[in-house]
């Protein structure tokens, strides 16, 4: 054979193959790439061989079944590497991402059932990764949004962002679409909430017109009507429309005048890592919880009464072990709260490696139930406190925020504090005394006149 011709043929074939290969790649990546970023660096050699041999999904499936046993045994630590391995081997396993996020964010708790919130950034990163790898379905966008909405419960703009993405997916369930309006509301975006309800109501009405005998279609229209109706009434009564129109000061809206919550608190270090927290809160008891946070004073990734939850897209299942971050809710009864917080039995969750700490009290009406928001408003316009009303820690919102500083020696009752009891208190602390131990729960009104009448 003519060698020149063969060489030319060889060159043509290689060039042709290379061109087709480049043309193929985007389609391969979109349709068949296990991970959108082709990242298998987290796998060991033997795991890579398994993946190479084409048994990737099988191994992932079996591992996930194995994780079930660990759930039953309560061996939560053992589940973490399995979650990571399964999502690497088969990134299309939506259930594993969803369950993994929930597990990481909710299930690592201390002896008093407080979550280890240092894991939340990893749970969010897992959700982001899962959404990227399964962007054809709403599920992981919805789950990630739920984590922001329910678990973090303080940054609803991110919940809204994720749910907006979920709503763009064709398979998003009709009943779940409503919740985006709730996220808009809690984010202070009233117009967004109304427009979203209206959009859903229009779609539901069209569907009902086409299927007048469909009970589900009818129920959907009714639900949306009630939701929209309630929202408009609430916004009107709370004065939100008036705020927009500039007439808020002229009428007696439910949020006027601002109600003094009368916040005071005292923290006593009863024993090493054991706190007794008590204080006053002149607010209707049902549905009120004041957030308390104890954290390192100077660590990166911290913000007032919270962590910086979104710390990037890297899934790291080892939280920052040096960091101490305790968050709890103080349940208010009879206008007072009392709680004993024991951190002594969970040294890995509360390492207390820093020299200085802060104890923060935080109340944001956006996280409150609707009947509280009716008085306080979404942005706290119906709420005040002579000492601890704060407009800085959450931009555009009026929240209650108090901070007490405490040292490591005080918390661990060591050094000069071995024989003395450290007590930290806010300005004007009012001792709650026996009031909180009463069996009867008083339900005061939120209006000033009712309060005065008691």
């Amino acid at each position, binding site marked *: *054979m003519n*060698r020149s011709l*063969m*060489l030319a*043929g*060889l060159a043509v*074939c*290689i060039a*042709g*193959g*290379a061109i*087709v*290969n480049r*043309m*193929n*790649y985007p*389609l*391969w*990546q*979109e*349709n*068949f*790439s*296990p991970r959108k*970023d*082709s990242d*298998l660096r987290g796998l060991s050699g033997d795991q*890579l061989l398994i*993946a*190479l*041999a*084409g*048994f*990737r*999904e*099988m191994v*992932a*499936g*079996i591992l*996930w*079944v194995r994780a*079930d046993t660990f759930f039953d045994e309560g061996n939560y630590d053992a589940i973490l590497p399995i979650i990571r391995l399964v999502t690497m081997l*088969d990134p*299309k*396993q*939506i259930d594993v991402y969803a369950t993994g996020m929930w597990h990481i964010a909710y299930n690592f708790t201390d002896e008093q059932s407080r979550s280890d919130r240092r894991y939340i950034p990893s749970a969010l990163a897992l959700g982001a990764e899962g959404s990227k790898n*399964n962007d*054809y*379905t709403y599920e992981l966008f919805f789950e990630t949004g739920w984590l922001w909405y329910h678990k973090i419960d303080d940054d609803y703009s991110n919940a809204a962002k994720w749910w907006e993405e979920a709503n763009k997916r064709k398979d998003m369930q009709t009943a779940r679409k409503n919740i985006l309006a709730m996220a808009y509301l809690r984010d202070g975006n009233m117009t967004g909430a109304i427009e979203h309800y209206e959009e859903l109501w229009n779609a539901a009405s069209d569907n009902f017109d086409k299927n007048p005998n469909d009970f589900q279609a009818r129920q959907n229209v009714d639900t949306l009507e009630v939701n929209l109706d309630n929202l408009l009434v609430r916004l009107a009564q709370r004065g939100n429309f008036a705020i927009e129109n500039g007439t808020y000061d002229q009428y007696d809206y439910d949020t006027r005048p601002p109600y003094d919550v009368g916040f005071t608190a005292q923290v006593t270090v009863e024993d090493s890592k054991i706190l007794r927290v008590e204080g006053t809160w002149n607010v209707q008891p049902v549905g009120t919880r004041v957030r308390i946070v104890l954290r390192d004073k100077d660590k990166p990734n911290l913000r007032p009464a919270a962590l910086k939850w979104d710390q990037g897209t890297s899934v790291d299942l080892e939280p920052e072990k040096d960091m101490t971050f305790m968050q709890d809710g103080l349940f208010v009864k009879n206008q007072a709260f009392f709680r004993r917080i024991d951190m002594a039995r969970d040294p890995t969750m509360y390492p207390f490696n820093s020299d200085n700490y802060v104890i923060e009290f935080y109340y944001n009406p956006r996280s409150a139930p609707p009947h509280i928001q009716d008085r306080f408003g979404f942005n706290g316009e119906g709420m005040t406190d002579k000492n601890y009303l704060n407009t800085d820690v959450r931009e555009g919102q009026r929240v209650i925020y108090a901070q007490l500083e405490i040292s490591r020696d005080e918390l661990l009752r060591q050094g000069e504090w071995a024989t003395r009891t450290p007590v930290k208190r806010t300005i004007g602390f009012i001792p709650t005394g026996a009031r909180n131990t009463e069996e009867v729960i008083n339900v005061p009104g939120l209006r000033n006149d009712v309060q005065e009448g008691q």
Partner: protein
Amino acid sequence: MGAILSIAKTTIGEAIRRRVLLVILLVGVLFLVIAPGLSVLSLRQNYTVLTSFTLGVIQLTSAVIAIVLTVYLLPNEVERRTIYTILSKPVYRWHFLLGKYLGAVGALGMMMLLMSTVLVLVFRIMQQQASMDDVLQLATAPIFFFVQMSLLAAVAMFFSTFVSPIVNFFLSGGVYLVGTLFSPVFQDLSNNQTLPAAVKGAATVIHSIVPNFAQYNIQGGIINQGPELRSIELYYVQIVVYALFYIAAFLIAGMMIFDRKEV
């Protein structure tokens, strides 16, 4: 053409009489038959484990058969001196090489067809609620595994023109490994704007030369049925065209070497 087909036909006959290949095939079929037994390990994951395992068995068995079958084709002929009888007739060396390759691919196709039939039977028995569309979708994977293995056979045929069978076994296996696992990595590197130009250039060259076996691993879309596949017909056509280009390239390179080789 007649000579090529005669050689191919003879090669198929030889291949299906080779015990080592039959043993490998038997092991593969055996694994397919016992696959449903894995359901004890796969609570709630029956479909995933069954399809992934069976398709994995077919792919792995086919790869071993493709390499073992091809690495011995030329050296055996030389060793047994039967090649002299053939080349003394009006048969060109490239006829011989092409005939051997087509015979190997034919034998491989027959063996893969047998395994695919078992796969479909097992699937029908175990997933009785599955529709005909599901079965056809499942059968798509072995078709493209066959294209993949034909490419792998061409690689092994090329190496068999100048290295011993044992070396060839590891060389072809290595190319398969690199082409399956690292092709996407090299592609990502060549597209990465933050890397130095030299690294990007090297990645592009490697990615262009090493056969990309990864693109035939389409089982992910079958096992995880959620995602809607985009332009899938175009993709299938393109990967077949790619295989034809590369098979031709390896065979031409093999012919050029074999043409000058003293036998």
